[in-house]
């Protein structure tokens, strides 16, 4: 029995380590490339040696250049602002609508829910052209509103909230009604406190969507002032002389910010999806 366990764990670790290498190699590669000069980078690529991955001369030049020469702080701040507003507005509107779908019976409920679900199956990429026309008619091209408002109502986030709220026993809500609580109180005092995990999950999903968004900001936020991080990154590639080390450094930053948010909250993230997934 004990021997079996050891063998089993041995194979589990082998699997884990192989996948870790496959997962992490491009990231290490990216990190290493961001810490060396372009010339050094190309010098050691082939044949494969330890210096392919480990820089000979460590340099932070590309990171410094990124912030001094290319003003990379601006897109970072822009994207954080856009993400933050999207999270607050997205959580609020979607959770309130989900509350209605989960706890009420009303006419056309299935149809209305269906409309939200359809929207979840139609990503922004596919409707970007007509959407651009709408946003342009509203005068929102090159504004934060153009980046934020169209993304607020989200089928996915609404779906998560609805699944989660369905698990809240109706008897609790009924008891609160009998005690004379109004719906705002029920939402704030019963629903919200028992749904922290799903709010964290929704926030992470919204953040990741905004942070990694590419085509939509490319169309709607072209001016340097409100440029988001992915566009700033791709502009390194688009310019004739590609600045590889800066691109790698920017990629590292682009990866580290969501990571910094995900690591401390991942427990909630898993819990949030867990509780909204299976039951209900």
């Amino acid at each position, binding site marked *: 029995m004990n021997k079996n366990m050891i063998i089993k764990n041995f194979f589990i670790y082998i699997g884990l380590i192989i996948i870790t290498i496959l997962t992490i190699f491009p990231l290490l590669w990216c990190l290493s490339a961001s810490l060396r000069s372009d010339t050094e980078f190309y010098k050691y690529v082939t044949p494969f040696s330890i210096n392919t991955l480990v820089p000979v001369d460590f340099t932070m030049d590309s990171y410094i250049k990124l912030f001094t020469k290319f003003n990379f702080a601006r897109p970072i701040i822009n994207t954080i602002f856009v993400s933050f507003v999207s999270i607050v507005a997205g959580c609020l509107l979607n959770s309130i609508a989900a509350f209605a779908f989960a706890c009420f019976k009303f006419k056309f409920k299935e149809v209305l829910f269906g409309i939200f679900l359809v929207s979840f199956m139609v990503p922004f990429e596919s409707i970007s052209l007509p959407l651009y026309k709408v946003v342009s008619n509203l005068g929102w091209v090159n504004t934060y509103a153009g980046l934020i408002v169209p993304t607020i*109502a989200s089928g996915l986030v609404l779906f998560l909230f609805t699944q989660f709220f369905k698990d809240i026993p109706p008897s609790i809500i009924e008891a609160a009604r009998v005690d004379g609580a109004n719906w705002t109180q029920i939402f704030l005092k019963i629903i919200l406190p028992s749904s922290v995990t799903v709010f964290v999950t929704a926030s992470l999903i919204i953040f990741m969507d905004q942070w990694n968004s590419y085509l939509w900001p490319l169309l709607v936020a072209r001016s340097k002032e409100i440029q988001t991080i992915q566009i700033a990154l791709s502009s390194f590639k688009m310019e004739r002389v590609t600045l590889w080390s800066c691109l790698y450094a920017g990629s590292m930053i682009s990866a580290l910010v969501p990571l910094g948010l995900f690591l401390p909250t991942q427990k909630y993230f898993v819990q949030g999806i867990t509780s909204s997934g299976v039951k209900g």
Partner: protein
Amino acid sequence: MNNMFGKFKALPYIFILPAFLLIIVFKIYPIISTLLESLMVKGTFTLDTYETLFKDKIFWKSLWVTMKINIVMIPLQIFIAFCLALLVNTTVKGIGMFRTIFYLPVTISLTVATIVWNLMLSPNGGVINSILGIFGISQQDFLVSKTQALWCIVLIATWKGVGYWMMFILAGLKNVDASIYESAKIDGANWLKTVVSITIPLIKKVLLFVFVANTSINILLFVPMQIVTQGGPEGSTNVLMYEAYKSAFKMADRPRSAAIVTVLLVIIAIVCTLQFRLMSEKKEA
């Protein structure tokens, strides 16, 4: 419960209204507008755009490429995600760290993933080729090869996407009562049988969600094509979504682009409906 809530007829509608208005203006209207644009030429209703499109060999080739990549990529991603979820659901030491590592690529944008992989897969002086060199494998063309480019994109998208779906499936697994596994063990069911006949039916809801979400994302995947291959070489990575993008932004043929997007949305709707049907039928059985 019905009576209890019956008194507040308008209330649920008020709760839904803000989100609903946004969905109508920024999702439903653009979808309908896409449909209309594909059906109107100079203000009159016509099927000309579709007729031209369906006679176009490029469209059919592109449809074939789209099917080819998705038939491989969707099941592959979900299979790997499922295996990863089973793996990180074990209770060996340090499993939390591994789970986090597997999720890392998700936090990276597809744009960045594509750019980094493109350089790693470069035929001259790419690091993957120099690694293959250790094993005596000759230099491969990867993204500039007609036969390999599409599968390289599958690799990039899978590397980036699998951790995301793993998290959802893992969440489902965590919800399964451990005592169910214990009783299966007592009944003498082996590991594979337990997974197929107990685990999968129990996390069906999560799997359905993962299938539907994964399908719509992958069928519309086009960032790697837009950044690296431009649909080539020789149209081998020219998926419909990229063809639509090209029609709109490079050929300024918006009706054609709208018609292609409409076709794509219909395909997604059909596939997702099938998935819903299949999964919910099993539930009743």
